């Protein structure tokens, strides 16, 4: 590609197949020294498989790689690290009960004494504008700070190639800016960065080159700055995307709020979770409230408290004037609540049960699927088939176990199951997590349709696009507190970023860097 820079990593004809799916087919690309190279593709396009092979976590079935001109075939991450390849995962592998320095030690072959290490961590964090106290306990850190631990862990090994898997999904807009400064500084010092994302604007501002994957194949290589986001999106998806259509809001007769939350405070049932602190808001019929925030600021707890898995004082959660705070999930479903937790496999769906059984899981009451305690399996099957059909769930049939579905398909099934029950109140955490762009558009449209039919909707998401496209009002969850909801119209990204807590005291970080 670029003749000016020497090549650092070359991947030639790499193929990896799993039973029933080819994750990577004949993938070739190369990354130059000091280049920020984007690996772009939808969920399931094969990005993660590809970088796991580069990091030595899995072995390709065929194909070759070269690093610095020498053959490169790492058998384990340790070998990859030894040859100067570091990786920051999307999901952090940190022990919350240990402090930063102890966590960094765990990844090292020959850890230096703790005091030297703490000094080194301080130095690297100062050099790259990533402030971090080596003695703080990881359990107390924000998601952005945890990411810094992972990055510094890699930087201490002085990598030539740094792989970053969806690094901005847990960051506020301001934190993203700081991360980009760090990455540009690393690149200018000669470190190549392989940057995985599906966020096009980010890639356009940051990356020098991009390789676009679709269904395991390289479909295009381009210079992101020369392309529009829309062009790249269509290369990535392979079709033209239609944005959801927002209908004019109907005026509903004034009643008590469909969902009223008053001074909701409840301790988190999750270890290292975030307790909810005097949260108040109300959602009217037909209204969509978007709740943004960086992961781990009480999103899971808020959904549990609204769905009834986590109980509070009776008056803290009300619907049309009825106090529901002390009720469990089923009494709430009886008054028209539906909810979709973030974790699909294990929480929203039972992995080893069929889709029919999983349809029964929450639609028991809404679809009246029992007669004096006995399950009406034919009716349940009909309901499951209806969800599969109307939400385009790709599955061999309704009797397939939930775990056999891909993440995106299961997400469509879970959302479809809830939205198909003619709900009064819809509660969704991360509606488009892991689904492709066209499915995300379909899910957003379905949520808008339910609202148009009069449902009150609360959407919790870390994806700002989700919220800005569909929400009427917008609030941010930060440290278990909810900001006062504001109308979406007229909000700027900067204002949203500040509502999200800015950059957690990092504004000064680059001043002296």
């Amino acid at each position: 590609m670029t003749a000016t820079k020497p090549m650092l990593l070359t991947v030639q004809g790499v193929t990896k197949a799993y039973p029933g799916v080819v994750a990577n087919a004949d993938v070739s690309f190369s990354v130059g020294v000091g280049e920020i190279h984007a690996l772009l593709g939808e969920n399931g396009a094969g990005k993660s498989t590809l970088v796991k092979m580069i990091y030595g976590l899995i072995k390709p079935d065929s194909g070759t790689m070269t690093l610095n001109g020498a053959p490169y075939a790492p058998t384990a991450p340790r070998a990859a690290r030894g040859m100067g390849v570091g990786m920051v995962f999307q999901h952090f592998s940190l022990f919350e009960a240990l402090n930063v320095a102890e966590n960094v030690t765990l990844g090292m072959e020959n850890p230096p004494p703790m005091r030297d290490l703490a000094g080194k961590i301080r130095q690297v964090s100062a050099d790259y504008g990533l402030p971090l106290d080596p003695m703080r306990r990881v359990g107390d850190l924000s998601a952005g700070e945890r990411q810094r631990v992972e990055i510094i862990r890699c930087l201490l090994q002085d990598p030539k190639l740094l792989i970053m898997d969806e690094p901005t999904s847990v960051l506020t807009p301001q934190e993203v800016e700081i991360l980009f400064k760090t990455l540009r500084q690393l690149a200018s010092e000669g470190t190549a960065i392989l940057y995985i994302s599906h966020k096009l604007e980010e890639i356009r501002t940051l990356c020098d080159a991009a390789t676009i994957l679709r269904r395991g194949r390289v479909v295009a290589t381009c210079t992101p700055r020369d392309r529009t986001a829309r062009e790249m999106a269509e290369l990535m998806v392979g079709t033209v995307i239609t944005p959801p259509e927002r209908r004019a809001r109907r005026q509903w007769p004034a009643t008590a709020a469909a969902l009223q939350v008053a001074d909701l405070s409840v301790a988190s049932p999750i270890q290292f979770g975030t307790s909810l602190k005097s949260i108040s808001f109300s959602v009217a019929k037909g209204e969509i409230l978007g709740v943004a925030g960086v992961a781990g600021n009480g999103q899971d707890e808020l959904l549990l408290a609204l769905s009834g898995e986590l109980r509070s004082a009776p008056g803290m959660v009300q619907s049309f004037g009825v106090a529901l705070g002390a009720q469990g999930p089923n009494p709430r479903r009886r008054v028209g609540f539906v909810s979709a937790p973030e974790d699909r496999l294990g929480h929203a769906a039972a992995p080893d049960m069929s889709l029919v059984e999983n349809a029964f899981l929450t639609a028991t009451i809404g679809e009246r699927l029992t007669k004096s305690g006995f399950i009406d399996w034919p009716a349940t099957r009909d309901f499951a088939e209806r969800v599969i059909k109307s939400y385009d769930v790709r599955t061999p049939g309704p009797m397939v176990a939930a775990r056999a579905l891909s993440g995106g398909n299961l997400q469509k099934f879970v959302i479809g199951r809830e939205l198909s029950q003619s709900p009064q109140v819809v509660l969704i955490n991360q509606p488009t997590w892991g689904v492709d762009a066209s499915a995300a558009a379909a899910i957003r449209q379905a949520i808008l349709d339910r609202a148009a039919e009069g449902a009150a909707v609360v959407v919790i998401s870390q994806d700002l696009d989700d919220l800005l496209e569909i929400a009427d009002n917008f609030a941010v969850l930060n440290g278990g507190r909810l900001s006062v909801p504001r109308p979406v119209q007229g909000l700027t990204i900067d204002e949203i970023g500040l509502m999200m807590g800015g950059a957690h005291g990092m504004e000064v970080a680059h001043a002296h860097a």
Partner: protein
Amino acid sequence: MLTLEKRPTPSRLWGAATPVLAVLLTMGAGGILFALLGKDPFEAIRTIFWDPLFGEFAWYLRGQLLVKAGPLILIAIGLSLGFRAGIWNIGAEGQYIMGALFGASVGLAVFPTENRLIFPAMILAGAFGGWLWGMIPAILKAVFNTSEILVSLMLVYVAERILSKAALGFLRNPEGAGFPGSRNFAQYPAAANPELIAGTGMHWGVVAAFVAVIFAYVLLQRHILGFQIKLAGQAPRAARFHGINPAWMTVMCLGISGALAGLAGVFEVTGPAGQISIDFNVGYGFTAIIVAFLGRLNPVGILLAGLLMALTYIGGEMASTNLGLPSAAIQAFQGMLLFFLLAVDVLTNYRIRLFAKGVA
């Protein structure tokens, strides 16, 4: 190189085939064990599996099959519901003893009154006794989150102490010339649980076991409670999302399994055993755990597994008397059955792949 690869969905074929495979492997390994002990392995296997059904004494032993299988099936059905929900009642033996004690106490208290309600009252008391003994670990788990495994197991030994106290003390036959053991229910028609059809071994306890099989089958296939039991065991977080209260689930499952074990106890003491004695319990409560797993926690499977286990018991006794095999060898043989079942069970969820080494 062999590698295990997770199947996208559990294999139905292997789900049905693994118990058969486990029995065959047990026969093979057991045969080697018997050969090492200097016995003819083929004769030993034939004595255990064939002779009780078709041998010289089959006319008697076939009846014994139902006598032994009845309590095993009844207890295993109760245990399987809890196991499916992830609630591990290991103390069915104790609940079995307490059921027998409660039931027998009611009968002995009214001796020698003749009334048609006495036997049903004893049955209810037996179920209550087992339920009560199951409630101890249930409530401790629900309130203090103690391990039901340890508590229920330890309560077996408590129940055994109470049993010997009863046999030597408060339930001892006043006309028994000081020998330990209660009055024999065979001589008390109002409280007896006799063979219903002579020579078959069929008594009310066996009937209750069959009813329990049907009941459990319908519960698991069609009833919301069965769905909730399966859900709680497979995906606890999804179960809470569905709206199940884990404490309630614990109380219910330990209650059902305790009550069924208690029933088995009272049917046994009024029928085949006849009286409360120091060595009244013979390990049905523990063997039922093997039966439950051998039957894949499936009611029909448990019915077949109970019969198979009863067969190895009877055949095992024959082998130890006729061939002089040590009883420890028979117990090892029965243990192998569970061992091999759990070992080949992996094939239901995984497939074995052969990989040539050295793929780049």
